[in-house]
């Protein structure tokens, strides 16, 4: 019988059992609408309040600065479109990077059609944004700088402090948005530390449920809502709250942050162990986006030259090992990874790039099994390289 080794935790994670229990409890017993005036409503409202406090505590911010949304994509949309709409009069220039998640890039593409000017800052071979270019692009027309904290495909950490310093040195009033969907629960930081105005979060990347996320909006920052209705979430995101999803998110954040150091060191050790083992036992491998001290603890992107990533993915799948090629959201498209392409990685490397992403659930035995299977599969597949 095959064992199951799940190494696709950047796509999504397995929920904590406590998260599932907490959510079921809400669905079964506390199903009230938080807007209802009676007890059932107040129960639900209190549960949301508690979750909001848990998220706020994890970020060391006020709970009034956390707004729940339907996930990371919506949080990114709320931040970017909300900022653009609210600051139309101050300027029409927006800045982001070339390696953002599609939920950011496609939002900016939409805003370009709406008449905004967008600068896409390039990255170096390791996926770090070009600070010089950023400095040159920021002008008095700039109203938003949006950068991801950790890249979902290669794990590179962006220099958030340096970016803040550049915004300040240019005396820009631009809002600073950070997509922290991959870093929340993996890197200890606070928005205040880097002077971040808007921060996007997602629950299912840290063992919470899908369909649940949040946007941090620094007190005093005004953005325009993009969904209108019954004024839920302090008018920032209308629509009856996803109570179970929010409760699951809060629970997931609590557990993750209660065991933060342990969880991160498990991921980091296993990742480093896998990297070591791959380099040790296999030829013609390239680690993409590697940069000492600038990498998230949970993502390892490796090219096995000469092997189509998707073929390797399915061969690993047959052995119960689940990995990803590029980002899960773009695997249906034949286009190669826009992130690796932006990093200037060569085509053979892009076509053979596989992402291993860890959670605190993984063990050293998982890695041993993975390496063992990987070595056998690589040997087998390399026999059939196109002649």
């Amino acid at each position, binding site marked *: 019988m095959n064992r199951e080794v799940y190494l696709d935790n950047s796509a999504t994670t397995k929920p904590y059992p406590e998260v599932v229990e907490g959510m079921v409890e809400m669905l079964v017993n506390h199903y009230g609408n938080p807007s209802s005036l009676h007890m059932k409503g107040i129960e639900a409202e209190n549960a949301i309040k508690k979750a909001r406090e848990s998220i706020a505590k994890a970020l060391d911010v006020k709970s009034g600065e956390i707004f729940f949304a339907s996930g990371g994509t919506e949080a990114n949309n709320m931040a970017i479109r909300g900022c653009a709409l609210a600051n139309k009069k101050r300027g029409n220039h927006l800045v982001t990077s070339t390696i953002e998640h599609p939920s950011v890039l496609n939002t900016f593409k939409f805003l370009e059609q709406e008449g905004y000017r967008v600068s896409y800052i390039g990255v170096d071979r390791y996926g770090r944004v070009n600070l010089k270019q950023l400095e040159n692009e920021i002008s008095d027309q700039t109203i938003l700088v949006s950068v991801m904290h950790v890249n979902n495909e290669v794990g590179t950490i962006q220099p958030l402090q340096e970016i803040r310093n550049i915004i300040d040195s240019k005396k820009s009033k631009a809002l600073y948005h950070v997509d922290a969907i991959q870093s929340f629960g993996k890197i200890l930081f606070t928005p205040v530390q880097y002077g971040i105005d808007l921060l996007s979060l997602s629950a299912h990347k840290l063992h919470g449920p899908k369909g649940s996320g949040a946007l941090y909006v620094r007190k005093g920052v005004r953005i325009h809502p993009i969904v209108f209705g019954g004024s839920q979430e302090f008018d920032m995101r209308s629509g009856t709250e996803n109570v179970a999803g929010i409760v699951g998110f809060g629970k997931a954040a609590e557990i993750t942050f209660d065991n933060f150091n342990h969880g991160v060191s498990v991921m980091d050790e296993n990742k480093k162990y896998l990297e070591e083992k791959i380099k040790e036992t296999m030829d013609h491998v390239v680690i993409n986006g590697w940069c000492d001290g600038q990498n998230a603890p949970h993502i390892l992107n490796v090219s096995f030259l000469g092997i189509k990533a998707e*073929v390797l*993915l*399915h061969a690993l799948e*047959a052995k119960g090992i689940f990995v990803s090629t590029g980002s899960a959201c773009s695997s*249906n*498209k034949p286009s190669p990874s826009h992130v690796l392409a932006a990093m200037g990685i060569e085509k053979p490397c892009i076509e053979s790039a596989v992402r291993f992403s860890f959670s605190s659930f993984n063990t050293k035995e998982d890695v041993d099994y993975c390496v063992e299977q990987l070595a056998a599969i690589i040997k087998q597949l390399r026999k059939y390289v*196109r002649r």
Partner: protein
Amino acid sequence: MDELILVKYGEIILKGLNRRLFEDKLIKNIRIALRGLGNIKVSKAQATIYVTPMDDQVNISKVIERLQKVFGIVSVSRVAKVEKDIEEIQKAAVSYLTPSFNQYKTFKVETKRADKRFPIKSPEMSRRVGGHILSQVSHLSVDVNHPEIIVHIEIRDTGAYVYAEKVPGPGGLPVGSNGKATLLLSGGIDSPVAGWMIAKRGIELEAVHFFSYPYTSERAKNKVIELAKILNVYCGRMELHIVPFTDIQLAIHEKCPEEQLTLIMRRFMMKITEKIAVKNGSAALVTGESLGQVASQTIQSLGVTNAAVDLPVFRPLIGMDKEEIVRIAKRIDTFETSILPYEDCCTVFVPKHPNTKPKLSRILAAEQHLDAEEMVQKAVEGTETIVIGE
């Protein structure tokens, strides 16, 4: 006044003594196609099939939509049934068709008197009903040569029928009335269309798909199942055989010259399909090949693949351009599924310079390096069968 549907079938009337057989098949197929739409009676009389809703719950538009996909049907009409009485017919012609009249200015009446006991002859019926319509619907005038709308009156043994619309059916012959064939279903644009065209000639289909895991994914398999389900709407129940093909591809890759890979692979597909076809009682194979479309579909290549099997191979798309095939694929709703990009990790197995003018003798020589019979046998034994529909 009752509302029902008259179904006309053309070609099968010509089939002499087989006629009854064909009609029964068509009625059976119609009954299957209308499953889940409520209590509906399907019966036949005087070369017409009557589809009668037995209660108000039946959605007649939905019934017509389904009937338009049943092979063998030439046209479908939504009709009012009345007493065989001139006044009743006149009244119905106005009351039933008034909504349709609103969009038109000219009309004429055509009468068919299948029940010769009815005393008024067809031309006179047409005149009298037309006169009545003229007197009741002020904005209409008669135009016998180019009417915008034709009011049909049919006097039959079972009653009188009044209608204006006649929606075309797909034509062809009832599926199952003409034997069985096995389709090589790839997941591309062509093969579902080929299957549809052969099923249209009354052939029952089974399908074979070659699965090259891990070189193609589980999603590629799901896509083929999806396509089979779309075909199922037209072709009825279908068995889909998923053949494990990776080992064969690897063996060919290892032991045969590169420029012959595709053709030898195609020949293996044909051999395996033939084996499955013989087992399930099929009398022919069906492929989506179209002359000259790719290297393996040149006249020489087709000769080489054809020589792999004894059963006849039907290639209904052989003389069609890609655009013509795409047009049909869009019409039968397979196109959108066919273009989903879930495959093509197989590029490892595609030669850079395929042979477009292969010689059978050389291919046979290359195949000597393989134990073809055993490979085919193993693939057939490993085949998984999924029943589509039912």
